[in-house]
């Protein structure tokens, strides 16, 4: 028998703090964040609603718009440092958020075209595994993890970690929004995955904590969203997609599909990352995160695709197209990020907007 003491509470780690208000990147984020540092009041709420009416045109590749959306979404997670918690449910905030989401979702739906329907048709006629393959064939990844395995420098490795950190330091959280919305077998399967993601009852074993430790051991700041100012728009967009899918009940199957996508595309890249980490000579404990994901995601993939998404679509067959939207949009944005990283790294340019180490 192993006896583990749980006495003693560690000092607040940087992961427990709300992120600071980021550097403004344009007119919309500047105006929004200026209003949010005050407490909610009639004037500021009116101004936020006025900003919502001015949201027009594409937002998918607009860093100012995606940063604004990320900050408004963060009010639903941990909030922003020195921003009044009552903003979370301010109708004006939700109006501005809704305007950004409407453009974002419309652009994503145009970009993925018929793929959600293809996913639905293939999943019904052949099977879910084949439906994921159909999306993968239509949106093949550029092979960034193979590049990292063979060629990434230490600086590029750090850029990879920083790019991943916006999600990985809140790993699993966006998909947890689905827990109270699911029922039956799909809920059991989701919670089986999330229990593992959150450390399976073992202190310090949350995947987000393992990732923070990896960052620290690789010479980076493990603070939650510490590198928000450094990440390009593609990183913000894929994070915003997960939260949008998670926060809208009408997109429930989409967040379930997105999690199944992540679990079924993570095993082999993490194997490549583990090889890269060892090649670059980072401390052995920094590789734990990637080794853990090879083993855990081999399990999660089966649970996510068959037991979770399979059960949800068995109980709600009409949800297959929404699931396909989550899968296709997720693949689209992951590929876009990877393509940009590869283009920069192959050209010997940094991917991030700021030097990080």
């Amino acid at each position, binding site marked *: 028998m192993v006896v583990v003491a749980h006495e003693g509470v560690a000092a607040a780690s940087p992961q427990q703090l709300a992120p600071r208000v980021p550097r403004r990147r344009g007119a919309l984020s500047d105006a929004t964040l200026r209003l949010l540092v005050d407490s909610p009041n009639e004037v500021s709420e009116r101004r936020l609603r006025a900003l919502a009416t001015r949201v027009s045109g594409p937002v998918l590749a607009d860093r100012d718009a995606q940063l604004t959306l990320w900050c408004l979404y963060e009010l639903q997670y941990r909030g922003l440092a020195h921003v009044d918690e009552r903003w979370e449910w301010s109708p004006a905030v939700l109006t501005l958020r809704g305007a950004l989401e409407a453009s974002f979702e419309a652009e994503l739906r145009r970009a993925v075209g018929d793929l959600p329907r293809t996913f639905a048709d293939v999943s019904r006629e052949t*099977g879910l*595994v084949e439906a994921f393959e159909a999306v993968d064939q239509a949106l093949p990844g550029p092979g960034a993890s193979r590049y990292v395995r063979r060629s990434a420098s230490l600086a590029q490795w750090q850029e990879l970690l920083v790019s991943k950190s916006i999600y990985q330091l809140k790993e699993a959280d966006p998909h947890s929004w689905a827990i109270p919305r699911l029922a039956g077998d799909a809920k059991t399967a989701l919670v*089986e995955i999330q*229990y*593992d993601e959150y450390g*399976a009852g073992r202190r310090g074993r949350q995947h987000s904590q393992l990732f923070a430790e990896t960052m620290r051991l690789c010479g980076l700041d493990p603070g939650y969203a510490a590198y928000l100012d450094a990440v390009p728009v593609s990183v913000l967009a894929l994070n915003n997609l997960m939260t949008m899918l998670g926060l809208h009940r009408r997109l429930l199957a989409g967040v379930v599909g997105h999690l199944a996508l992540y679990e079924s595309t993570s*095993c*082999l890249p993490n*194997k490549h990352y583990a090889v890269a980490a060892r090649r670059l000579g980072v401390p052995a404990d920094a590789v734990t995160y990637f080794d853990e994901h*090879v*083993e*855990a*995601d*081999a*399990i999660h*993939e*089966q*649970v996510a695709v*068959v*037991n979770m998404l399979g059960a949800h679509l068995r109980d709600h067959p009409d949800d297959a197209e929404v699931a396909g939207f989550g899968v296709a949009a997720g693949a689209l944005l992951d590929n876009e990020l990877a393509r940009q990283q590869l283009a920069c790294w192959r050209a010997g340019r940094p991917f991030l907007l700021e030097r990080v180490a």
Partner: protein
Amino acid sequence: MRDIELQPCDGGPLLVRGARVWTDDDGNRHPVLRPVVAVCRCGKSSLRPWCDGTHKLLRVAVALDPRGSAS
């Protein structure tokens, strides 16, 4: 006797829930540290007895035999 649940996955691993030990065919005992583990059935995993997703790279059908037992 513990309740052990076995779930074979199509073309993939065997999911094992509720086990404490997986004993492979050579008699090696592998402690089970998770509520659910995936046992390799294609024989190609680098983490055997556990699955590492390698079966997805195999183009030909492989014998799907977990070679061992849970307890």
